[in-house]
């Protein structure tokens, strides 16, 4: 939000004078140190949320992310959760896909043609995720765990975490199973333990400094499985949602403080 306020101020001062811009850049530096460039994507994310699209030419503003149609405050911190209308547990991205289908009338193929974007052009899911997650800052992470399907999804996610598979015999725990381990210089959080899951999960989605990209948890699941040498998990599938749910339940209680930065 601070960065967005700054971006707005920057536009305003562009119209004013170059000298003012210089002053604004001075003001900008400590803001970058304190915040994340991810915040710069909240504004385009909000625009996308409000933009009429699809055969029905409507926006996503009536999408129910679990707190009621159009309610964004705290919605991300309470996902994944069970949705009666879809009769399944959904994370943010699978829920957005559901709303693109039901509200906007878009086909799954069209809506998922480009789920992971680039530095130059983030995907719709990335922009929307950053905007919506930002509306949960300070809200405690509390994904759904009361419904039978939520409990079953959690158990599935936990089993997936330890399931050895693929051409290299890895499970999630092959890398994220023991404390104090690294791949190259990268420290590996033991994500089935709350003290490690909490700070990690509370900062997704995020801005990835090494590639200048916005990244989401669906991307993270996809890229871990790529490196595990399995086939590709389908975007928003039960497998990916179950893992995200398991990790998020493990992290529950942590105040959401993203979108954050990743290496």
């Amino acid at each position, binding site marked *: 939000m601070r960065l967005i306020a700054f971006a707005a101020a920057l536009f305003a001062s562009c119209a004013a004078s170059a000298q003012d811009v210089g002053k604004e850049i001075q003001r900008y530096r400590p803001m970058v140190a304190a915040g994340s460039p991810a915040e710069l994507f909240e504004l385009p994310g909000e625009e996308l949320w409000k933009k009429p699209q699809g055969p029905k030419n409507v926006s996503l503003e009536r999408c129910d992310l679990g707190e009621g149609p159009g309610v964004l405050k705290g919605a991300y911190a309470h996902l994944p959760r069970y949705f009666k209308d879809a009769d399944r547990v959904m994370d943010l991205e699978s829920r957005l896909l559901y709303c693109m289908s039901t509200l906007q009338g878009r086909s799954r193929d069209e809506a998922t043609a480009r789920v992971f974007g680039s530095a130059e052009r983030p995907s719709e899911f990335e922009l929307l995720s950053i905007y919506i997650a930002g509306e949960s800052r300070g809200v405690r992470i509390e994904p759904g765990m009361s419904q039978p399907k939520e*409990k*079953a999804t959690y*158990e*599935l996610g*936990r*089993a*997936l975490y*330890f*399931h*050895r*598979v*693929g*051409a*290299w*015999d*890895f*499970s999630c725990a*092959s*890398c994220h*199973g*023991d404390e*104090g*381990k*690294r*791949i*190259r*210089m*990268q420290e*590996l959080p033991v994500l089935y333990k709350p003290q490690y899951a909490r700070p990690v999960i509370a900062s997704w989605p995020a801005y990835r400094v090494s590639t200048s990209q916005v990244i989401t948890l669906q991307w993270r699941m996809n890229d871990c*499985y*790529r*490196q595990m*040498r*399995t*086939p*590709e*998990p*389908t975007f928003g*599938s*039960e*497998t*990916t949602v179950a893992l995200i749910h398991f990790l998020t339940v493990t992290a529950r209680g942590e105040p959401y403080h993203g979108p954050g930065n990743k290496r």
Partner: protein
Amino acid sequence: MRRTALALALLAPAVWADPTPQDIQRIMQRDFHPRGQATMERVVQDGVQRVCTETHDRPPPDLAKALEADQMKTIVYPEGSLMGDWRRGEAIAQGGRGLTWNDKPGDPAGGSCYNCHELSPRELSHGTIGPSLRRFGSARGSSSEVQRYVYGKVYNAKAYNVCSQMPRLGASGTLTSAQIKDLVALLLDPASPVNE
């Protein structure tokens, strides 16, 4: 009626039982799709993956021994010396490509060794999931027995420790026999930086 309710209550825990590896495999077969060289048979567990999943990587000793003996049979030793070129071995140890859905099939793969192991003292960016291999050869020499052990371990780590986290680099088709020989040299050649 009351009896039925009791029976249902007793059955209820079964609904909450952890999904079995068989359940997970069916779910993965439904939720994953082939891409590039990453085809769907990769979500079908073999015996090693199944047992290690079921036992959380701690199989009973008898079963572990039987599976290791089984894996030992997969190792194909080439004729002649097992020592290749440690310089090529260093490049293979650095490389992390191979077998993912965005690697081009047929391109030479790396061994991803530095991802998990310390080897040359000149490479500070090394992982710690596996043990340090610094001075591996200085400590053990480079007899044909040691060469055979290193070649076999790289070819199929599960023949020595069935639930090892190390990939079966030869048995999975990741590395060629010539590449594994180069890795043997990286570890055992007295001139290799690993043995400085």
